[in-house]
């Protein structure tokens, strides 16, 4: 048996009402709301979140592959899967690879992972897809896009859904694109994109795989069709003979928006949340061609109680108060430079990655005191180099004390400075709190750790951990 062992999703905490965007421009709202990555999030951090949710109850040592898919990777050159792997705390003996450039990148990575496991070159491959795309200000994409991530672990034991077959078509078409000099997504005329690009490729891939598998429309319990917008998805499903009401998976466009390369996997996660044993599913993605995959849910799904489910992620949200906040979060409006800024050094980040990226503390073998950052000489008993590393990233904690700092600045001022007492040996972590309403912070409040982007310094991005309220 080969297929999905586990899955996880991530949708940022903030939503922006499309009416708010429309109002800023005096234009028309397409209705609903879209997810907005916080100012300290990007495709890497969201992929880490989804991956954490995916491998929460999995032995990390068993994962020997990590594929990252995105069209909005923060780096053009430098692998991101290696960074995600460190933050998720996967072993270093691992295949890491980045998939890019197409909204099909998520399903392409899934296919590659499937092939890797099938050919026995890897045992368990984590596929994570994440996107944070920019639509031109005032464009419809600015409203219809959303930010989010998903992660799927493929393997051959404890499978909750087998992958039965995968089928791809490629189509050379410059319908939606971004060159190496663009920040915003370009698109040719929408009617052409949807009818000659999206609909045709999807139809070919889906018909192809159904024919090869000898399936009729009502053999499928769920049809998960990626969609840039609702009407063309429904038209396509109807043409292919699916029942819109009972078979078609919600495209998540009203409450999240189109999360790009992550979207097919995010929809798959939402479908698996509700799936029962024996159900057969079709997943199809689009991006200059289409990938279609047939899955079959196993009895194993009963053992798996995903947390959070996609609907939990949708429910846990805060509305951004203004369009300008969104602009500042994506750095689309110029902001006053920080007068005081600490320098960075690639060597320092590299040398300290065991605590700075993996968020490990040190636990003294003699007196059991847990310290963060890792201490070579124990604070409690002064034992030298006699410690084991303990993981703090997946441990809950409590706010020991806090302040709301208006002097420090930043897009989310006041910055919430906290001392977190970790459930791991009461280790103390001084960090910022993110995704929060400053007025709601209290001593004793339960928090969890979250991997975030800090700032650009010396020309590269610096990542570290913050805490956030447990939603």
């Amino acid at each position, binding site marked *: 048996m080969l297929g999905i062992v586990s899955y996880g999703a991530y949708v940022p905490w903030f939503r922006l009402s499309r009416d708010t965007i429309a109002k800023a421009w005096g234009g028309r709202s397409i209705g609903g709301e879209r997810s907005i990555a916080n100012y300290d999030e990007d495709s890497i951090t969201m992929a880490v979140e989804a991956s954490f949710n995916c491998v929460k109850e999995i032995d990390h040592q068993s994962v020997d592959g990590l594929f990252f898919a995105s069209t909005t990777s923060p780096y053009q050159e430098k692998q991101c899967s290696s960074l995600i792997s460190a933050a998720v705390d996967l072993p270093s003996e691992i295949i890491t690879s980045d998939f890019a450039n197409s909204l099909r990148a998520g399903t392409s990575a899934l296919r590659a992972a499937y092939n890797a496991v099938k050919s026995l070159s890897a045992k368990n491959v984590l596929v994570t897809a994440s996107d944070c795309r920019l639509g031109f200000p005032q464009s419809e994409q600015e409203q219809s896009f959303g930010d989010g991530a998903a992660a799927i672990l493929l393997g051959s034991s404890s499978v909750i859904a087998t992958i039965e077959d995968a089928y791809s078509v490629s189509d050379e078409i410059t319908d939606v694109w971004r060159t190496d000099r663009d920040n915003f997504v370009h698109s040719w005329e929408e009617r052409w994109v949807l009818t000659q690009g999206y609909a045709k490729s999807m139809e070919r891939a889906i018909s192809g795989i159904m024919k090869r598998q000898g399936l009729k429309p009502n053999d499928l319990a769920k049809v998960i069709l990626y969609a840039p917008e609702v009407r063309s998805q429904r038209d396509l499903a109807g043409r292919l003979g699916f029942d819109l009401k009972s078979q078609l998976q919600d495209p998540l466009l009203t409450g999240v928006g189109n999360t790009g390369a992550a979207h097919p996997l995010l929809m798959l996660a939402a479908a698996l949340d509700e799936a029962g044993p024996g159900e057969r599913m079709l997943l199809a993605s689009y991006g200059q061609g289409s990938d279609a995959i047939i899955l079959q849910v196993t009895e194993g799904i009963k053992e798996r109680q995903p947390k959070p489910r996609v609907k939990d992620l949708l429910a846990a949200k805060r509305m951004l108060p203004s369009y300008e906040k969104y602009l500042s979060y994506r750095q689309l409006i110029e902001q006053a430079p920080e007068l*005081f800024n600490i*320098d960075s050094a690639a060597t320092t980040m590299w040398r300290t990655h065991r605590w700075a990226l993996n968020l490990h503390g040190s636990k003294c073998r003699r007196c059991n005191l847990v310290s963060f950052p890792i201490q070579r000489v124990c604070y409690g008993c002064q034992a030298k180099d006699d410690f084991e590393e303990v993981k703090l990233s997946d441990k809950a904690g409590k706010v020991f004390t806090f302040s709301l*700092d208006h002097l420090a600045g930043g897009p989310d001022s006041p910055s919430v400075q906290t001392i977190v007492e970790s459930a791991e040996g009461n280790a103390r972590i001084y960090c910022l709190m993110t995704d929060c309403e400053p007025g709601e912070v209290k001593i004793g409040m339960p928090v969890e750790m979250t991997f975030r982007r800090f700032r650009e310094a010396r020309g590269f991005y610096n990542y570290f951990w913050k805490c956030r309220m447990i939603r």
Partner: protein
Amino acid sequence: MEGIKDKVAIIGMGCTKFGENWDKGAEDMLIEAAYEAYEDAGIGPNDIEAAWYGTDHTVGYLNPGGSLVANALKLRNIPITRVENACASGHEALRNATFAVACGMYDIALAIGVEKLKDTGFGGLGTGRGEHPVLEIRRTAPGTFALLATRYFYIYGLSPEQGKMILAKIAVKNHHNGSLHPKAHLRREITEDMALAAPIIAWPLGLFDCCGNSDGGAAAIITRADLAKKFRDNPIYIKGIGLSMDQMLPLFRPGFDWLGFEANRVASRQAFDQAGITQPRKDIDLAEVHDCFTITELLIYEDLGFSPKGRAREDVEAGTFTLEGELPINTDGGLKSFGHPIGASALRMTYEVYKQLQGKAELSSRQLKNPKIGLSHTLGGPPQVACVAIFGNSIG
């Protein structure tokens, strides 16, 4: 272990006007502080045999060493050592000079401190310390000390309003004292209502809970106790100096209670032991303490043994630490009124103790009646180092 009591005396001190000294560089302030001290001691620059210079980050990051002092004062061919120990840097200059004189190596030494903060372009002391690219991003001094206030209010069951009212009383006291001192930066009296209504800097600390951001310099000339009376009739004797460096940043220290600082407790105990002080509240006549924030002063009352743990509030409400109170604290207005040009602060505090013990406060309205023992205290941060020095106007 033998202490330092009565081995070394201060025979001259100088202190610049503290404030936004836009038209003065660090060298100008070094000159003003040193020449006032020379004049006070009745000596000239050629009498200085060695100098210790305390500064945190003024002028030049790449090994300026002691050259700024040599350049400004044209002190030639004598040892000049730059010392840095965060906010205790001024105390470090005095402490090291004291030990050098006590051991007989030099007869006359200069301890001098300066900081030019108003060239940074930033109100406040900046963020983080740069020890690591991400560890202390956006950490500010008020943000860090506010962590103490939040915890203190929580543990002692004070509502934010009650807690802020206690802090407001400390701010009002120090602003009042500062209004009487011609060299203070902030010389305006404030009311409790003003303090409570002030904009928040780092919750729960408001504007008037934070010390000013100022430039300044101060200097002391010291000699052996047995030589002191050759220079003046009223030298001030060093009774004890304690310094304690905490082993780990409180920010990450397991079990740290955020209700005070071990470094304060240890440094003050060292100094009290040397000086033979057993009841600090009774034995000490005035104290200049490190009120970088009002909450810090509140915790220092407890750490230094002036108030029982958790009960400083009662003493604040009783006016114990006002100019007229049982133990006047920050009689010159403290960091609150003088600001905190880091390397200069300890020597500025010591300047106030020195003048009060000599009965030479500028205005009679702020001169204490016959004080005999005074104390200066700094707390460096992120709070981890504390220094306490004790002074007296007679031997024994």
